[in-house]
């Protein structure tokens, strides 16, 4: 009966019926009681740095300079740990509000950011520039689809593009210049006789003014993701708020000077950690029925490259967070069929081999949104 009623609602137009027949609003609100947040980490997060498998003896042989000393790690179990820049995620883990998926990837096996993000966001087997985003399709299955989803950030991500209309919110203030973009621009400007020195002067002036940290190429701290997470929480915590929100954080493409306990990647992780904590606290009572999925397009090479960084790889990590009714299956555990880091076990002899399809989590999210299950 319940199912029939929902189908009926979809066919006729939920908002109209809800206003005419208040009794039916229960069916709609039962669904919109749940909140799903997708966080896309663009640039390929190094899963081996975010969640180091410190129990795997091969790890130090391949990337010793990139490793955080064991005693500084936030241990999850006898094999996996969190990077020390993720203390609030660690607390979530202890509260059983976090599942960590390791050695996970989409079916994409090449190493282009653009194509990999396309697969991540369309949920297909292969890149297709014309395809709709999987969350847009999912939003279409929710009652009152037009108000079901919202993009929080600078652009409408592919994952929300498609035939269903989607809301959006963009901060008034311009986003801060991301360090990873700045470093690339510095390489370009270094070749310009007139502008090159002026860019460096400008950066120095900003560093002196004190609002940017330019020390030792460690990059500038910025707050873009935290601002987005706070905004997302404000929207989602409204009774008539959207059921779906998408956030993005960039700057994960750490080819050079990735850092270990501190440095570029540690700063990205800290910002992610802060943003997720803000999201959780901002949601208040809604956190109980919220699921947050944090994903990236692929992982990075197991071995360090020649510039103290890592290159494009295959499998990485995904985080699933949620409250008591957030659709988690095994909160407080690392879920992984560990493929091992012996070179014979590596994907193409270089990358962490995927043992789980990331799209299982997409299906899980849809199931959670539609039925409340995992």
């Amino acid at each position, binding site marked *: 009966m319940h199912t029939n009623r929902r189908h009926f609602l979809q066919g006729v137009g939920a908002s109209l019926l809800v206003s005419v027949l208040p009794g039916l609003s229960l069916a709609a609100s039962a669904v919109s009681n749940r909140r799903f947040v997708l966080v896309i980490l*663009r*640039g*390929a997060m190094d899963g081996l740095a975010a969640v180091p498998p410190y129990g795997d003896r091969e790890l130090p042989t391949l990337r010793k300079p990139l490793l955080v000393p064991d005693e500084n790690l936030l241990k999850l179990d006898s094999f996996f740990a969190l990077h020390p820049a993720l203390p609030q995620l660690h607390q979530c883990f202890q509260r059983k509000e976090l599942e960590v998926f390791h050695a996970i990837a989409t079916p994409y096996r090449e190493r282009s*950011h*653009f194509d990999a*993000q396309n697969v991540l966001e369309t949920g297909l087997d292969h890149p297709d*520039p014309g395809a709709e985003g999987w969350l847009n399709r999912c939003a279409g299955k929710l009652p009152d689809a037009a108000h079901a989803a919202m993009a929080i950030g*600078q*652009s*409408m*991500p*592919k994952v929300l*593009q498609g035939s269903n*209309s*989607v*809301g*959006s919110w*963009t901060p008034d203030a*311009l*986003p*801060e*210049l*991301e360090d*990873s*973009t*700045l470093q*690339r*621009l510095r*390489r*370009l*400007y270094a*070749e*310009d006789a*007139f*502008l*090159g020195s*002026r*860019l460096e*002067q*400008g*950066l120095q*002036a*900003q560093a002196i003014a004190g609002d940017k940290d330019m020390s030792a190429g460690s990059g500038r701290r910025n707050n873009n993701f935290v601002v987005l997470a706070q905004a997302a929480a404000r929207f989602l915590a409204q009774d008539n708020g959207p059921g779906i929100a998408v956030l993005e954080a*960039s*700057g*994960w*493409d750490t*080819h050079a000077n990735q850092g270990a306990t501190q440095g570029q990647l540690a700063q990205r992780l800290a910002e992610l950690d802060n943003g997720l904590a803000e999201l959780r606290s901002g949601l208040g009572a809604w956190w109980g029925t919220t699921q947050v999925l944090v994903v990236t397009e692929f992982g990075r090479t197991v071995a360090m490259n020649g510039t103290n960084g890592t290159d494009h790889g295959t499998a990485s990590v995904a985080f699933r967070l949620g409250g008591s009714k957030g659709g988690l299956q095994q909160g407080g555990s690392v879920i992984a069929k560990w493929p091992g880091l012996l070179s014979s076990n590596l994907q193409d002899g270089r990358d962490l081999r995927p043992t789980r399809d990331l799209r299982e989590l997409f299906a899980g999210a849809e199931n959670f949104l539609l039925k409340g299950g995992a």
Partner: protein
Amino acid sequence: MGNWYRSIEVAVIQDQQAGYTAGNKFGLGLQPGELQQVGRDPRGWLQQQLTQITRVPAAYKELEASGVLLKRATEDLRETRKAVQAAKKAGGAEVVQPEKSGADSDTGNDARKLLAGNERSSQQELRQQLSLRMQVALTTQTPFAERLVRFWSNHFSIAAGGGAKKVLGEIAVPYENEAIRAHLGGRFAELLVAVEQHPAMLIYLDNASSIGPASMAGQRRQRGLNENLGREILELHSLGVNGGYSQQDVTSLAKIITGWTVGGLTDQRALRGEPGRFLFVPLMHEPGTQHLLGNTYRDDDVKQGVRALHDLATHPATARHIAFKLARHFIADQPPPAAVDELSAVFSKTGGDLPSVHAALIKLEAAWQPEQRKLKTPEELLISLGRGLDIAKLMEANQNRNSRIKNNFLLQALQTFAQVPFTAPSPAGWPDVADYWGGADALMKRIEWSTALAQRLGNQIDAQKLYPQLLPEQATLKQELARAESPMQALALLVASPQFQWRS
């Protein structure tokens, strides 16, 4: 494929650098797909635009003439002032206990409100005109012609100011169309006269209220000569600051053009004329013969000034001054002297025939050398961004949706970068050199703004595909675009790249 196909391909590639230069340096920045059209015959593409240079763009169709706008603006201002006076008087009569009563401040508020309302409608009119002007820049199919209009508009710069000059903001674009665009198909002399007789210039440089000391008005009233326009005609508009004129010449020219004013500026009967239009008032005109640069000009009313301007327009110093400014705009901040000589010779030989001078620009080899480059001004950067990303189309497509970019965001950016058109800091117009625009802080601002824009549009645009349509291939940039960590970052790198900051 047969050989014929290959030979065509080679020909296109050979002309490609010239295509980029035509579109980016002579034009306002390539639009996607434009290179294919331009690249076939870059010089021909520029040349044919010169035949259309006086045509008013369709976007300005609804724009009223400066006479109509100026009449309305001055009447509104006069009405407002009257109302303000009345409000003050009324308030004063009611005030019994000034120290206790709120009436005084209420009337003060009323007056302020009236003036503020007048100010607002002024600014609104300018904003609307600037919005149209941006639209023209983004969509024009004759961008070289449009660049020339803007070059000359900057040469004959006007700026909205306070007081009586507030009205200039309301006739800025009509001024550009009527005085400048309309005269780019003829001689420089005609352009010069049209500009100096346009109400906008007469108001901007105070000639509208300049009175010959020996004129009837001068004798009767205690007011007299204002040298402002006379000086700037010599220093900026014609001979140039080193053009060999003296203070005596400035005073003479100022006297020669006394009586050149605007109808309807005041209630005075003699100044009524046709409201908002050029008006010669004999009562204000300095009588007698004047001497200017060794020439003698007998007093034949308005014709005295027209003859003086004609002589200035064909003076050798004017030819050099104009030639230098054009060469600096179309070649480099320090243009090769030979190029300046060439333009100057064409200017002199043709009696200042503008189509001939503009055509000579196209023939200058130095203008086509990629190493001769110009740093884009902020306005040029924004226009080239808007064209390169086809913002006009994106805005149209997004019209009824939750748009990532608001319609006026380019205008807002002009404010951010401190280059709102018709607000240049001096009558010399906006500086045309990299040292002025390329400061470290300004560069950071460009980069931050461009990357932010790219983040909002990056997933609607494939930067790697767009790149060769806008800029010639360069190894480092190509590599960085391919390696970008997201489509948004790729677009950010493209539009914030050093290459995109230059016209070359």
